């Protein structure tokens, strides 16, 4: 297989293998993790008999491989489950039901994804503006005071954990200055304006962490580009310094910035745990931490598969974009 379709197919096959192994790893790890799932689900004061009933109900007594087989079956052909009063069908790809709430994992994922996306995509705009802007400025103004200040600011972003930045931002901006309401997730479809206002601080906090990476990358690639021969060509033809920087040097940095961006977005969809927790955004990351703590295995597996999927997708997208942006690269 060659060319773009071949590339997509190879990536897809690779992704499936990766996701499969990922689900096995999660099953095994959480199998050996302490925590009596049935007891946790049943409640702390449940009697052994009751715990046993719950374990049966959730198939927790089956051997690991049987449980995993059920999971696979659900993914491939779907499965039926009982709500007590009726039997429901969970269509393939069915990731099972939460031990805790009985909700279908796919439903939970669909509910959480928009939140995580809202957070990450908005933050992306800010980190790109901030990071690339800083990078351009610091490549341009190398060694000057403005560059050092900017670099220090972005580094402070890396150095300070998000929960500190976020909380201090909230205390100052929402509490003391009362410039913004305390963030509270609003669906984009309900009220786009409120959606944006409420997410502004989470966006900023998340973006501040990532911006420094983009600043560094932009600066490094721009300096690399500026040292290249074609820059000399344009200077030798009287093209102004501004045009050289913005048109040529920055263009040289775009491929790697786009690639880093795709990868960052991919990992942040499920990885912005702390930001989601701090700001109370009901996204994938927050749900994952909750599920891990109560050993809600179906939810954990489902969420990890989703986040893993996005990481893999992001890497593939990064490659495609990188190749598209830098036509010299051939997809392999």
């Amino acid at each position: 297989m060659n060319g773009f379709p071949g590339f997509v197919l190879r990536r897809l096959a690779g992704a499936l293998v990766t996701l499969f192994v990922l689900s096995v790893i999660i099953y095994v790890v959480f199998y050996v993790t302490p925590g009596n799932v049935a007891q946790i689900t049943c409640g702390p004061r449940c009697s052994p008999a009751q715990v046993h009933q719950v374990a049966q109900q959730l198939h927790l007594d089956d051997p690991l491989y049987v449980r995993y087989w059920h999971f696979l079956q659900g993914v491939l052909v779907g499965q039926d489950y009982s709500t007590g009063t009726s039997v429901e069908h969970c269509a393939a790809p069915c990731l099972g039901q939460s031990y805790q709430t009985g909700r279908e994992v796919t439903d939970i994922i669909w509910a959480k994804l928009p939140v995580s996306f809202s957070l990450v995509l908005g933050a992306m705009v800010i980190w790109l503006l901030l990071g690339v802007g800083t990078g351009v400025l610091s490549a341009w103004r190398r060694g000057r005071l403005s560059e050092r200040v900017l670099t220090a600011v972005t580094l402070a972003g890396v150095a300070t954990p998000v929960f500190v930045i976020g909380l201090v931002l909230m205390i100052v901006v929402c509490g003391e200055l009362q410039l913004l309401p305390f963030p509270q997730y609003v669906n984009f479809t309900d009220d786009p304006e409120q959606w944006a206002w409420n997410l502004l601080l989470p966006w900023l906090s998340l973006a501040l962490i990532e911006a420094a990476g983009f600043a560094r990358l932009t600066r490094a690639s721009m300096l690399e580009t500026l040292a290249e021969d074609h820059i000399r060509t344009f200077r030798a033809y009287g093209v102004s310094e501004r045009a050289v920087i913005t048109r040529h040097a920055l263009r040289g940095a775009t491929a790697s910035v786009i690639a880093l961006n795709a990868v960052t977005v991919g990992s942040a969809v499920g990885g912005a745990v702390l930001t989601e927790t701090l700001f109370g955004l009901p996204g994938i990351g927050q749900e994952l931490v909750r599920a891990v703590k109560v050993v809600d295995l179906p939810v954990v597996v489902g969420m990890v598969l989703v986040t893993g999927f996005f990481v893999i997708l992001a890497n593939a997208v990064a490659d495609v974009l990188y190749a598209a942006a830098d036509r010299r690269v051939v997809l392999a």
Partner: protein
Amino acid sequence: MSLVEVTDLTVEFGTLRAVDGLSFSLAQGAALALVGESGSGKSTVAGALLGLHRGTGARVGGSVRVAGTDVQTASDEELRRLRGAKAAMVFQDPLSSLDPYYAIGDQIAEVYRVHARVTRRAARARAVDVLDRVGIPDAARRARSRPHEFSGGMRQRALLAMALAGEPDLLIADEPTTALDVTVQAQILDLVHALRTETGMGLLLVTHDVGVAAESVDDILVMRHGRAVERGPVGAVLAAPAEPYTRELLDAVPRVDARRTASPATGEVVLEATGVRREFGRGRRAFAAVDDVSVTVRRGETLGVVGESGSGKTTLGRMLVGLLEPTVGEIRYEGRPHTGVNPAVQMVFQDPVSSLNPRRSVGESIADPLRARGERDEERIRGRVAELLERVGLDRAHYDRYPHEFSGGQRQRVGIARALAAEPRALVCDEPVSALDVTTQAQVVALLGELQRELGLALVFIAHDLAVVRQVSDRVAVMRRGRLVEYGPADEVYDSPREPYTKQLLAAVPALDPESAARRRAARREPAAA
């Protein structure tokens, strides 16, 4: 008033004086070549004409006037008006001299709009126009291509188009053909010549290749260590050099018509390739870099392999030493099929920079084959390495030096010493001198010849330079697109080539004599027209 007036130009980088009191002038429409080896400061002069040293920390003294602009005192704005509009520059490496991310037409349009207040659309039309003039077929469509979609020659044409766009009075060409194949080089030189006659612009050609200068200019200025050594009409200087350095330079240039003193090519066959084919890539993207090639090398004999880029000569060389396995066919060493590397078959690489590990002393690099063979006695190793260093013309005491402390020629000698350490019976030299200055080239070639005679080595000499190959080879294999085009005794191939491709190659080699150069240019034009 002359187009260029350089008086007492000095350029210093830190403590290094790259250009030292150089003066010259160039009349409207005239052509001057700055010729010199690396480090002679010739490119620095070219840059100084456009004020490119401004803001780089280099100290520039003397005065430079180009097309009425005093480059030294001009404001940034005035300098920008000079660049591209009155004097345009063409650089050595056409690939890296163009922005890989933009279409070629757009890049030309961009620089055109710096000087001409025209609309974007008009600038694009202009770009297509000049691309067409430099001979890019289907210019309107190709203007939308990016540099990597162009071949090397087309890129250099595009750079020339960029220079033409602003209708400059002066074209500064800095090694414009160095990175190109010989046939392409001829085409570009022809194009420059044609454009000059057409537009009447002046030309300042910077080159290390006397042959290129001979083809292109009226006057020549030979530079060394930042100073002018000799200057005058190109015919006169080349025919009767006044200065010893000029003479030395000219003598070192290999001539394609010089016969080689016969060598006793009678030994047994050391290395043999039979019907080898090597593919790269898989599936539909697979292509054969070398296809059905059979060659033999005998003891004490030199096989020259010539070809342009992409001809498969390096792949063939790597198969011969066992760094690559043939897909089809086999490599025989002393009659027996052999796979994998073999200390008895060594290689000398093209790039003296990348062929030595910069982090290891040269002595250690040379000692590698000894140690790999199991030698443990440090004293014996040092002794043998010292001997080898001496043998290749270096100092015994250089054992502990690092590669960067050596010049290119010296590094190539180290590479040869390392190959010799393995006590090889065959030596494959892949473009061993193409990265070297001509004078150095001659020395390395001489060393190889000496070693061959002394040790009875079977040599494979791979190069793109037909003249060098002729100088060293007993037999010659001409390759093109992976296949053997012509294969036979050197004199036969060079003096009475059978294949049209060989003829074409030979016709493209620049001649040192301007008159014969003009003749050959005319000859080249005929088949092109036909």
